[in-house]
């Protein structure tokens, strides 16, 4: 079984599902790093808050009596994205904006502090135990079969892939076709010059955080639907791995973050499928180290020329 092609396909599907989550979070890291050059360490917690928003929204809808699943998912998706992106906005406004122009280390420490704060905030409000949620829809398409071993692509996974691809397309269009995207690219190249030419830098940075948080919220929703269990601590590991993905793809590059996310997801799935589950996190971190040693700019990143 372990050596068959079917097993490989199965792991690939798992890896791509996981990769969708990492890719959506990684985009938030890359957008923020591109525009203000800081690691938004609390981004993983935004993802966690998104997952909690999604769970609570599902429960509230269930209480109200909206049980038609497509409608429920649509409402939850919108509510989660809106509410979580306001967390992203507030995070930037309260914790990062006062520190713009301070030493980089100060921003990093603030981000770590915010991460600790948000984790404990959710733990206090919602309790420390993990929260299970039942599967919303089951079933799937049978792709191939080898004896007893059946490879299925579940409807949930199809939904996840479609959702991820749609969001990535929309994001790419925003960045390349709208005035907001133009401002973002301008700020990324030279913030001071952009401000001189009439770009509202503060607003652009705020909206960048909002976009990143909205995508992380969707990742949270996907995580909740796919794994069915969340707790207040999921943001830490997911955040680190998504950051790894962003670095792997080349930090600052949006297509790089998407590619990196899927790659990390695949590596993790193959590693747990073919080697040991215990060391799958070690695998992800080793990849990070190897990439940084041999190609510090990542796969799609542009080289960072150092001026003296």
């Amino acid at each position, binding site marked *: 079984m372990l050596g068959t092609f079917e097993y490989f396909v199965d792991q690939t599907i798992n890896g791509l599902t996981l990769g969708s989550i990492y890719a959506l979070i990684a985009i938030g890291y890359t957008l923020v790093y591109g525009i203000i050059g800081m690691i938004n360490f609390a981004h993983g917690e935004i993802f966690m808050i998104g997952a909690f928003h999604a769970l609570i929204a599902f429960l509230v809808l269930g209480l109200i009596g909206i049980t038609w699943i497509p409608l429920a998912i649509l409402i939850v998706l919108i509510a989660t994205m*809106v*509410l979580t992106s306001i967390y992203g906005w507030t995070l930037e406004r309260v914790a990062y904006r006062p520190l713009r122009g301070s030493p980089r280390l100060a921003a990093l420490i603030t981000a770590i502090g915010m991460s600790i704060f948000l984790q404990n905030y959710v733990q206090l409000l919602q309790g420390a135990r993990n929260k299970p949620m039942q599967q919303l829809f089951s079933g799937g398409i049978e792709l191939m079969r080898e004896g007893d071993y059946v490879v299925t692509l579940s409807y949930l996974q199809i939904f996840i892939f479609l959702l991820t691809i749609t969001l990535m397309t929309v994001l790419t269009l925003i960045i390349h076709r709208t005035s907001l995207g133009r401002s973002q690219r301008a700020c990324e190249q030279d913030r001071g010059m952009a401000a001189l030419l009439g770009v509202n830098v503060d607003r652009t940075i705020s909206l960048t955080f909002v976009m990143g948080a909205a995508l992380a919220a969707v990742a949270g929703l996907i995580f909740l639907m796919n794994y069915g269990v969340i707790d207040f601590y999921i943001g830490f590991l997911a955040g680190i791995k998504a950051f790894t993905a962003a670095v792997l793809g080349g930090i600052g590059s949006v297509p790089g973050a998407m590619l990196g996310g899927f790659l990390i997801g695949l590596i993790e799935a193959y590693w747990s499928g073919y080697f040991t589950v215990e060391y799958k996190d070690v695998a992800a971190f080793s990849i990070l180290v190897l990439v940084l040693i041999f190609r510090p700019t990542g796969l799609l990143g542009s080289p960072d020329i150092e001026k003296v």
Partner: protein
Amino acid sequence: MRAALKESGLASLVMLALMALMVGVRIADVPGGLEIQWRYADVIAALVSVFFGRLGLILMREGRPMSMAVVGGVVSVVLLVLLVIAPISDAEPHWARAALPFSGYVVNVLLLIVLAALSLRAVAIMRRGPISAPSQASESVMDRISASVQEYSRYIVPFLLAAAILFPFTPLADRQMVDIAILVVTYVMLGWGLNIVVGLAGLLDLGYVAFYAVGAYAYALLATEMGLGFWLCLPFAGMMAALAGVILGFPVLRLRGDYLAIVTLGFGEMIRIILLNWYEVTNGPDGISGIPRPTFFGLPFVRSPAEGVESFHSFFGMTYAPIDRIIFLYYVILVMALITNQFTLRIRKLPVGRAWEALREDETASQSLGINPRNTKLTAFGIGAMFGGFAGSFFATRQGFISPESFTFIESAVILAIVVLGGMGSQIGVVLAAILLIGLPEIFRELQEFRMLAFGAAMVLIMIWRPRGLLAFRAPTIRLFGNGTGKR
């Protein structure tokens, strides 16, 4: 006025969005699934507080502090009375408790503090006119304090030292306080050790806890498997940690700044995962227990020692007291921390220390002046890790039990926070930050559940207030003219 109302309305709208699902609804576990409980009273209370607080702030900013002073003052007094009555009143119904705006007692206290501070500020503005740029004023005050701390450090340091040495003999020092002091000094030592890497060499290390773990496990394994004593193992544990530092440091030397931070974080997590899964050696998540305690030159701190061994109290003709051992541990860590401190202060003046600081300021320039960045960085990593390893062995021997749970990322973050919040490179700053971040929360243990929340908030607030750290004042290590103590 309309603009002010609009702004306050917006602020409460944002607050509503933040709280709508997160605070307003609580997920409760019930048999067979999850249930939700509504908590909208708290949300409404928060919205009202935010709306009026924001309005008052805007009015204060526009030079009309009257309403803030009056309303804020009256509400604070009412709140204070309610807060005092609520815990002591047993009357049914608990009218005092019901009248409090928030359901959590601590949240009400927090509201009271903020409100009282705001109204005092409003009164101050009324009496003295608007204070222009208040943040700059406080900034310069703290700058002056840190400069004078630096200047008078030759008087402050002996005083602090004497206080630290005499501390166990003061009436303050009961078992709990000495325990807290040990913890604080451990973190001071870790902070000083990390300061070599972060403060002097400018290498941002987010995985320092890995070396702490290596030291702890090295001692624990040597002691439990081979039966070696603490003092014999201590140098070895330090060497192991230094070796780990060099091995981990080697591949990441080319990286800078944030990248280095993330990779070191990854290494820290990797070591923890290995400790967690390598059952044969580390006993996995169950950890290692029965780690022997240190002895005073071979004299153990026990009531009835084994055959042929004399115990500490009988050798010195004292009666046995359990606190003796705690006090001894306190002095052990104090001496270890002081050695770290002296080592750092002295190595700064050696060529390698100068090279660290040169690398921190400008890597390219120092490379062109003939400093080998690889070896220089590796020494910083190794020496920093060595002190982490010493502290780790101490931790193992104090606890008597270690497991991977003690070496999570949060520990690294705490140690780094101590270094940065104290003011990078400032040795007294580390002490101050360790007391603030470790000591204070330990004393307020009753507020256990809010401890880490407050810790995170404190990190953010201190950084916003003082982005360069509390005591950020860096005297030049070397001057071209003069002996370094004279003023120009």
